[in-house]
């Protein structure tokens, strides 16, 4: 899937366009997320953070999705997966919250540091990312959309997952049900063309995942997920469709994973360095930077100030998270059932 091939099966609906201010906000968030992500990798290599699954390469798609939900849905709720640091950050999870998770410290808001980083729930921020079990959240997201529809709420549910996840039977079952009942949900597929080491060609025999949408009688589109504006446009159309009762859609983002699957992975045994080099050329942060500076929206001084602000924020958050204690083992028996 080359950069330029933007394939859209969706009807062209006018999406409430991103403003200059939105683009600058997205850029600021992307800078923060990237700085945070890089910090966590460094802390992993220092032996401080047990594991990290990076959002690098996926950030444009993730942030565009959140902006599309914010600007086009009366209300929304997200079911995310482990690679969605930009989604969770955009939804309001602070850098310090995330760092407490990566360091398994007390006060971590999603699971009380019971779970892997980024896992647990923040219903107050409109997201759940409970499970490490690939694909289980997809029927759950559909169930949430069913609940919203039954209660007559105008919530649009967003469900994020990777290309490998699409092979799970439960994902098929969930999409089928969502389409039968025309539920208000968008399936955001972050296709980085790898499931750990297994390439997309061993995951599916079709050229792009969104082709499956036809089999569910729902719209499906594949878009350059490293391009914020294109991603926003595709996501917005799907969100609007869900919001007006038009049912579910698949939005497939063509993104890159130029780092190993996680900090525990060694990608040198299965990836060609030249391919990774190519992937890096689609770095969404650089692309957004080029867009903003090329159109005169971002001066060098402003860029430097924004980068410094991101670094400062991460530095403060790191110090604070590192100073926090591990959770007390007194709580280990709590929250098994309503009685405990």
């Amino acid at each position, binding site marked *: 899937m080359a950069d330029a091939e933007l394939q859209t099966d969706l009807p062209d609906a006018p999406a409430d366009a991103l403003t200059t201010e939105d683009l600058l906000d997205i850029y600021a968030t992307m800078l923060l997320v990237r700085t945070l992500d890089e910090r966590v990798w460094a802390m992993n290599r220092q032996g401080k953070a047990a594991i990290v699954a990076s959002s690098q390469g996926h950030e444009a798609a993730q942030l565009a999705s959140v902006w599309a939900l914010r600007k086009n849905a009366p209300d929304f709720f997200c079911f995310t997966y482990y690679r969605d640091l930009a989604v969770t950050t955009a939804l309001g999870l602070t850098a310090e919250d995330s760092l407490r998770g990566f360091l398994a410290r007390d006060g971590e808001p999603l699971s009380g540091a019971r779970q892997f980083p980024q896992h647990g729930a923040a219903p107050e921020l409109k997201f759940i990312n409970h499970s490490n079990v690939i694909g289980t959240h997809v029927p759950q997201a559909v169930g949430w959309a069913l609940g919203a529809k039954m*209660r007559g709420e105008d919530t649009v549910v967003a469900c994020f997952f990777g290309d490998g996840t699409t092979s799970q039977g439960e994902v098929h079952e969930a999409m089928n049900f969502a389409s039968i009942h025309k539920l208000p949900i968008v399936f955001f597929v972050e296709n980085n063309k790898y499931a750990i080491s297994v390439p997309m060609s061993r995951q599916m025999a079709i050229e792009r995942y969104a082709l499956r949408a036809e089999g569910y009688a729902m719209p499906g589109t594949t878009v350059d997920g490293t391009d914020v504006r294109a991603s926003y446009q595709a996501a917005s159309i799907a969100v609007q469709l869900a919001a007006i009762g038009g049912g579910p859609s698949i939005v497939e983002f063509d993104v890159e994973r130029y780092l190993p699957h996680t900090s525990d992975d060694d990608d040198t045994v299965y990836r060609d360095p030249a391919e990774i080099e190519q992937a890096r050329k689609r770095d969404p942060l650089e692309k957004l930077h080029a867009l903003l500076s090329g159109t005169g929206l971002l001066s060098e001084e402003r860029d430097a100030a924004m980068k410094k602000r991101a670094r400062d924020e991460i530095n403060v958050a790191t110090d604070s998270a590192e100073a926090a204690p591990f959770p007390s083992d007194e709580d280990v028996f709590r929250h098994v059932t309503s009685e405990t």
Partner: protein
Amino acid sequence: MAVVTVIEAIREAMREEMARDSSVFVMGEDVGRRGGVFLATKDFLDEFGEQRVIDTPLAEASIAGIAVGAALSGLRPIAEVQFADFIWPTVNQMIGEAARIRYGSNGKLNVPMVLRSPYGGHVRGGLYHSQSVESYFAHTPGLKVVAPATPYDAKGLLKAAIRDDDPVIVLEHKRTYRSVRGETPDEDYVVPIGLAEVKREGTDVSVITYGLTLHYSMQAAAELENEGVSVEVVDLRTLRPLDTETVLESVRKTSKVLVVHEDNAAVSVGSEVSALIAEHAFEYLDAPVMRCAGPEIPAMPFAPTLEAAYMPTAEKIAAKLRELVAY
């Protein structure tokens, strides 16, 4: 007081809860126009409409998964798995997810759902319509598992399950559906989850059981009474959390225990009951804990002779009781 069958009691429990609480709804295969293959949801479609009586595609994993999500969103789904033999695709969602969501979110989320399923054999159901599946679920902290055997308990426990804020697996022995009748009160009531009940008082020996074998144990107890032996029968009713106190109280009273269930013995509810007795009532025992349970074969076979060979019947239970009394 009305005299009803188990399936009627189950139907009434759901109907009353759906009328009481608009967040309660049913979903499953054939639950709509057909009213469920055992007619548990007969006429529900007309009474409650398509929105709350959902005929799902033939896909158990997502029946469970969608119910989990709907429960997370604040509804109270009652998901039906047509036969417990087809429950295995739900394990990913029930054991992997539903059981762990409260814990894994540090109490921020909960999953107030019910998964109902007809289980058990002695109905000529063969390998795939006879299975006992309770141990797999009862093993899992975070789940609640009930297995009522009478109309009163079926209605009361199902109502309690629907109102419970945690995921509850309700296992209904399909042979009891139409063969067991009993009284249920006209007024609203629940049977609290986690309470066993002494179904028959006795002084010489205790039977600890649940499900269809409760009825077979009652028959065996009546038979032994004719032989001058006083048998106490304890119906566990809830398999997680187990009512340890009621079990131990009976053991302290009789000093001899037979654990009876249709599920095979290894790593079963009976294993747990036996271990609890060994741990907490060892000094009270006058004989080793004995068990009368399904054999270690993968399923209940179809032919009547083979099925009978599997089943812990009243005769087999009575024989074990005589052995225990003679010890």
